[in-house]
């Protein structure tokens, strides 16, 4: 089987994760159910003339992609693959509202242009002058994972490629808030650091960007090997347990080989049993890590699991704020990720130290 190595990774989130030399050292305790990414000086990465029409997700995406490329010491990728749940959601929302409030008059093109989901991927290509393959996935909580699967496939076709893969999502003022009406977002406030202990339904919402440079060969910059990624559109908790076991068998590892499992728990009691079912059985003797009480939930939040695994391999330890049980691994070689959103769009991934 061909390799798939993370040769550079960068992240912008509601925590101070943009600094490559720290790993959740100084945690921000958010208070609002919908919270923004941590402030970032985009001007360090984007020229003001290029920035004037950029929405937040384009700025986050372009800056994070540049950081990942620089970590991988790569100037020009051979493909750009992006995942996003909502794309440039804020501009799409304003365009829609102008249509509805102005009775379809006096509309301007910039907002509409940004509304296509591949805007971030297209803008990165435009900035780099990259004429290579450029595709965008929009599949709820597996938007990032389906992007990685495409990249893995491409590396199996041509192992010498370097592929830029990212997940980006932004908050919008009104359309994000709508999810308090359909129960996706909780109705009562709580300290976000306590999210995982919540006894109510719904979750919180935030935004961020994660980019990785994937290559078929290990380099001096490699931080992790992505052994395998799988998505499953719908399944029962029991089916997921079976699927994870099948996934491990296929990759010739046992539960004892897994040093830590990173789970997408988001404090929604209605769907928590998907995680609990494997936490209490398969992984009862495995170190368990969670992160959505730090960076919130959004369609590409699960990319943060890839970030955590890479950082754990790099730093050799786990910040205590991520730990949700008392098991401690001695070393970290294999880390398994599992995420789902409201019983749909499950993803399982295995990352290995390299």
């Amino acid at each position, binding site marked *: 089987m061909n390799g798939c190595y993370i040769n550079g990774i960068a992240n912008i989130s509601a925590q101070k994760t943009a600094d490559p030399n720290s790993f959740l050292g100084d945690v921000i305790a958010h208070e609002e159910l919908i919270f923004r990414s941590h402030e970032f000086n985009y001007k360090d990465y984007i020229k003001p003339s290029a920035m*004037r029409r950029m929405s937040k997700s384009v700025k986050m995406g372009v800056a994070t992609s540049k950081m990942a490329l620089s970590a991988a010491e790569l100037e020009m990728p051979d493909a750009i693959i992006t995942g996003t749940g909502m794309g440039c959601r804020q501009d799409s929302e304003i365009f829609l509202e102008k249509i509805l409030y102005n009775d379809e008059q*006096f509309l*301007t093109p910039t907002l509409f*242009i940004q509304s296509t989901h591949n805007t971030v991927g297209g803008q990165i290509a435009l900035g780099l002058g990259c004429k290579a393959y450029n595709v965008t996935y929009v599949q709820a909580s597996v938007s990032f994972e389906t992007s990685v699967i495409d990249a893995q496939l491409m590396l199996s076709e041509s192992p010498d490629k370097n592929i830029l893969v990212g997940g980006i999502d932004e908050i919008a003022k009104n359309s994000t808030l709508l999810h308090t009406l359909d129960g996706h977002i909780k109705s009562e406030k709580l300290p976000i650091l306590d999210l995982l202990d919540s006894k109510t339904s719904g979750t919180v919402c935030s935004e961020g960007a994660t980019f990785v440079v994937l290559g078929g060969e290990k380099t001096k910059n490699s931080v992790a090997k992505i052994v395998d990624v799988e998505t499953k559109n719908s399944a029962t908790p029991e089916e997921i347990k079976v699927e994870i076991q099948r996934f491990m068998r296929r990759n010739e590892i046992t539960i004892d080989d897994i040093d830590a499992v990173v789970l997408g728990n988001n404090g929604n009691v209605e769907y928590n049993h998907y995680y609990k079912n494997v936490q209490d059985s398969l992984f009862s003797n495995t170190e368990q890590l969670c992160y959505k009480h730090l960076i919130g939930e959004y369609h590409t939040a699960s990319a943060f699991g890839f970030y955590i695994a890479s950082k754990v391999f790099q730093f050799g330890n786990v910040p205590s704020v991520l730990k949700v049980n008392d098991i401690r691994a001695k070393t970290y070689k294999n880390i398994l990720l599992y995420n789902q959103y409201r019983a749909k769009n499950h993803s399982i991934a295995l990352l290995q130290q390299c």
Partner: protein
Amino acid sequence: MAELQQELKEKIIEQLSLEDLEVSEIGDNDPLFGDGLGLDSIDALELIVLLEKDYGIKLKDPKEGKAIFQSVSVMADYIEKNRTK
């Protein structure tokens, strides 16, 4: 006319998100596209909407914009002659 030119400069900066630019930095006869302000075809479409919304001038063909959006002074002249509001 000077008043309209000033007003146009403010509107151009706002409509086109030229946040780093001051009104005083736009000369009345500076080319808006190409070497001047460096505006592009999307900006031209934005300006067409500005004409319609604020001055009641409706262009049918985006190509007409090319002659009108040469500079702030040319634009102001055109608006003076054709405005309906």
